[in-house]
Structures are given as structure tokens and as C-alpha cells.
């Protein structure tokens, strides 16, 4: 780029709000020199729904449903974060059975989310078939969710004090079938994308994010872990009995697209491992601690961090003792992960932009809230 004698003609294009690679309604302004990206600037707010403001008008138990619509691929985990924050304020803890159910649901959510990401990544890189293979197992997970929670995507199943209702009697069997099938099918993932020459050429060494940048930009989740930053909330600040299960925090130090890709695939294996440990050991007992209809939190502030499929979600509740929260703030993982796009994109090609956005795994409603 340092060719001062050549006059570069800048060429500005708008990617989005309606563009297949933005996975939603993100708008990126790109300054191009031919195929090369000089600079980029995100424009947000096309799906800003004011969830934080809306939550201030709803009761503590009520506003949780809005969080399912935030990062809709980690709906369970979002609900879990809010429930934990409220439980923290009420100084109660969910019963053991509820905790295990929550962890199981959270890990299944993570699996489903990563599968969707995997399919969409293929789609973005021009390989259509992985999408259909990814949805094969994803649909099984959604079926399991539907049986227990009654919904496929926005469940509102985890509630302060536990979970809304008990597991479906078929839950354990179906999860076991799922795990068996998933383990057998992971080699197809390898054949379709991981081992593909073109795929490797498109991802290796592309979109490098250094560890310093990742920390400074506030990246969390798989994006930061692929750069070698330890940030798994499940390990650092265990919640809901994550300290009782065994799993590995997957790390990679390359920080490129392939590292992020590999990391998510490995994370899926870890999730399967967690589910395997818990599925036969769901404790008996009550699944929910009965709370009063209207919950009031003592005045003060409560911060709960959880690990969603995309990184650290922070729920910051400020209470003034009334039945509605005074201020609700969601520190969403995608909002900070989006920051990584600009340093990564400098000097990259348009084709790389697509793969970078895909490996960052952005969910736009989670950014805009």
C-alpha cells in the first residue's frame, strides 16, 4: 500500500443493509482500491429495537423474553444470564436439577448455534452444500428444544429460580441419539469444508487478529480465544455448576479465519463432552424454586456474565427497589466483536470480507439490541 507515487482511486461501496453476507441488516461502508479494502466503517441501528429501554418498563420476570430476541441463536443462554442476575439479587440459587438442565440446554444451544454458523460460513464462501448438512443435526436439536420448551428458537424456558417446566420424558434418549449421530457426522464436516483445499486457501492466514488487538478491542468468545486470549466465562467465573463438569477451554494462537473456524469445531466437541457427562447424571428433585409473582430486587446493582456461543454476555441490572429494573444494560458479545472487523479488513480483498464476517459470526440484532 505504501506506493506514494501511484494515485489510488477510492471507490466507496455500501455493503448492506440488505446483503447476503451481512447475515442481517448491518451496513458496512467500504473504501476500495480495486478489489482491495482500504478502510471500513460499520453503520448500525437498522434493527435497534430499544430492548434496554423496553426492559425498564417491564417486571424482572417479564423482560427476559426480550433477550431471546437479542442473540436468537443463544436464546437459552441469554435467558440464563438474566435469570442468574435476578437470582443474584434475590440471593437464591436454582435447584441442582434446574442447574443441570440449564447447562444441558446451554450446551445444546451452543451446538445448534455453531452448526448454523458452520453452514452459513459455507454459504458465504460459495459452498452451498454444507448448509444443508449443518441443518440436519440442528433440526434434531431444535426438535429436542421444542419438546421440552414448546418453541424452536425463542424459548423463554430458563426463568429466575430454575426452569419453566420439567424435561420431556424423551429428552435423555433423544439427546443420546443426537450425540451418537453428531459424533459420527463430524467427519463429514471435515470432508466438506475443513479438508478442502480451496477452503483452506480462503481461510488460512486471512483476517489475522492479534492478541493485543483482541484485548484492546474488547473481543470475547471464540474470536478472542482464536487469538490466544483466555476469556471463557465458564472457566473464569463459573456459573450454574460449570465448575463441576470437565471441559477444556480451546485456545489457538494463530488468530486467522481458520483458527476461528477450527476453534468452533473443537468447541462443538467440548460441548458434546459436557453433555455426555451430564446426560446420565441429571439429579432428581424440583426443577424450579417457586418465586412470588412480582419480584422486587433490593436496591443496588447486579452484574452477571455468561458465555454465549459468541462470547461474553454481561447483564447489568440496576435496581432502585421497585418492581421494575431501573436500568438494564446488556453487554453483548457481538457489539465488541464487530470492532475486530476494521483492523482485520485493512488490505484484504472483498472476498475476504465475507469470510471474515462469517468467522466473526455476527448476529446483528445482538449488536443493535
Amino acid at each position: 500500500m505504501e506506493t506514494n507515487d501511484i494515485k489510488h482511486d477510492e471507490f466507496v461501496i455500501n455493503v448492506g443493509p440488505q446483503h447476503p453476507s451481512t447475515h442481517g441488516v448491518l451496513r458496512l461502508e467500504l473504501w476500495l482500491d480495486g478489489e482491495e479494502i482500504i478502510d471500513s466503517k460499520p453503520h448500525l441501528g437498522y434493527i435497534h429495537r430499544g430492548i434496554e429501554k423496553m426492559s425498564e418498563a417491564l417486571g424482572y420476570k417479564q423482560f427476559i423474553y426480550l433477550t431471546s430476541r437479542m442473540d436468537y441463536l443463544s436464546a437459552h443462554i441469554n435467558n440464563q444470564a438474566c435469570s442468574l442476575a435476578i437470582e443474584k439479587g434475590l440471593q437464591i440459587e436454582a435447584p441442582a436439577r434446574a442447574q443441570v438442565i440449564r447447562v444441558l440446554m446451554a450446551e445444546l444451544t451452543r451446538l445448534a448455534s455453531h452448526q448454523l454458523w458452520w453452514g452459513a460460513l459455507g454459504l458465504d464462501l460459495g459452498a452451498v452444500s454444507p448448509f444443508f448438512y449443518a441443518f440436519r443435526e440442528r433440526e434434531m436439536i431444535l426438535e429436542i428444544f421444542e419438546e421440552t420448551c414448546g418453541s424452536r428458537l425463542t424459548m423463554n424456558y430458563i426463568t429466575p429460580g430454575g426452569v419453566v417446566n420439567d424435561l420431556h420424558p424423551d429428552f435423555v434418549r433423544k439427546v443420546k441419539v443426537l450425540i451418537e449421530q453428531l459424533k459420527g457426522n463430524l467427519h463429514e464436516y471435515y470432508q466438506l469444508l475443513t479438508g478442502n483445499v480451496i477452503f483452506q486457501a480462503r481461510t488460512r492466514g486471512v483476517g489475522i487478529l492479534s492478541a493485543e488487538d483482541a484485548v484492546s478491542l474488547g473481543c470475547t468468545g471464540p474470536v478472542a480465544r482464536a487469538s490466544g486470549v483466555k476469556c471463557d466465562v465458564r472457566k473464569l467465573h463459573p456459573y450454574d455448576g460449570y465448575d463441576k463438569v470437565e471441559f477444556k477451554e480451546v485456545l489457538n494462537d494463530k488468530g486467522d479465519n481458520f483458527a476461528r473456524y477450527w476453534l468452533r469445531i473443537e468447541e462443538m466437541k467440548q460441548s458434546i463432552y459436557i453433555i455426555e457427562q451430564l446426560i446420565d447424571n441429571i439429579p432428581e428433585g424440583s426443577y424450579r424454586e417457586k418465586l412470588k409473582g412480582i419480584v422486587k430486587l433490593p436496591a443496588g446493582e447486579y452484574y452477571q456474565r455468561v458465555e454465549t456461543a459468541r462470547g461474553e454476555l454481561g447483564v447489568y441490572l440496576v435496581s432502585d427497589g421497585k418492581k421494575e429494573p431501573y436500568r438494564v444494560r446488556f453487554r453483548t458479545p457481538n457489539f465488541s466483536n464487530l470492532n475486530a472487523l476494521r483492523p482485520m479488513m485493512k488490505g484484504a480483498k472483498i472476498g475476504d470480507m465475507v469470510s471474515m464476517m462469517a468467522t466473526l459470526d455476527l448476529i446483528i440484532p445482538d449488536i443493535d439490541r
Partner: protein
Amino acid sequence: MTKEELKSYLEKTFPGMTQEENIDFLVLWVEKDEIFEVARKLKEDEATRFDFLFDETAIDWQTHFEMVYHMTSTTYRHDLEIKVKLEDRDHAELPSMEPLWKAAEMYENEIYDLFGIRFSGHPHLRRIFMSNEWKGYPLRKDYQDDDVISL
């Protein structure tokens, strides 16, 4: 450092600043004019090394604003919450944290957009969520909008 160690260390380093403890974090109350220097110290000090700003937000207490910074250290893994009180609601202004933590750029854009707090030294302060013509700052408690239907 544990919470207690951090507490005594902060008392030593920043004498005179109020400290509080809530259920999650140690809270350090900082004056508006000192915030940038304190933050720089906390980030660059070898003993604290707060290199990860994981949240930055504001609270509208109707009489004043409260800026909240949540930070952690990727080396020591201790967390800290810094609070700043902003008395002047109409002309609230703070130094930007962008030179220290690049993550702050977007957080401050958001706070500017939804609360109307300005940040001096911010590279490009803009309304990221709302359109430029939008009147008012939605997350303020006195925000009025005729389109909003209340439950």
C-alpha cells in the same frame, strides 16, 4: 489480586477516592476531571494491568448521570468498576477512553447516541443506532416520544 488486595492497593495508589463494594465488583468513584489519568494509571500499572474494558455504560439518575466502566485484567483476572458522576445533564462531557481501550470507541458512540453524553478526544463521535435526524436521547428517563405506546 483478590478483592481485598486490590482494595488496599487502590487505597494506597489513589488516596482520597471513595471505594464501595457491591455483590460483584469493587467500585471506585472517580472525579470527572481525573478519570482519564486514573484509567491510564490502572491500565499501565504493572500491578493492576486493567487491559480489558469489557463494559462501559451510563445510568440516568434523573438528577445526574453516572458513567460506569467495567474493566478486567487478562493477566491477573481481577475486576474493577469505576464510576463517574456527571452533574450537568445538558452538557455532560467526559474524556474519551478510546486512546486506552479501542473498544471504548463503539461504547462511547452508543452512549452518545442513547444518552447524549459527549466525549472529548473521541475520533469520530456519531449516532450509531438512531438516524442523525433523531430528536432526543432515548435512554434518558425524560425521553418523550409520541409514537411510543406504553403498556
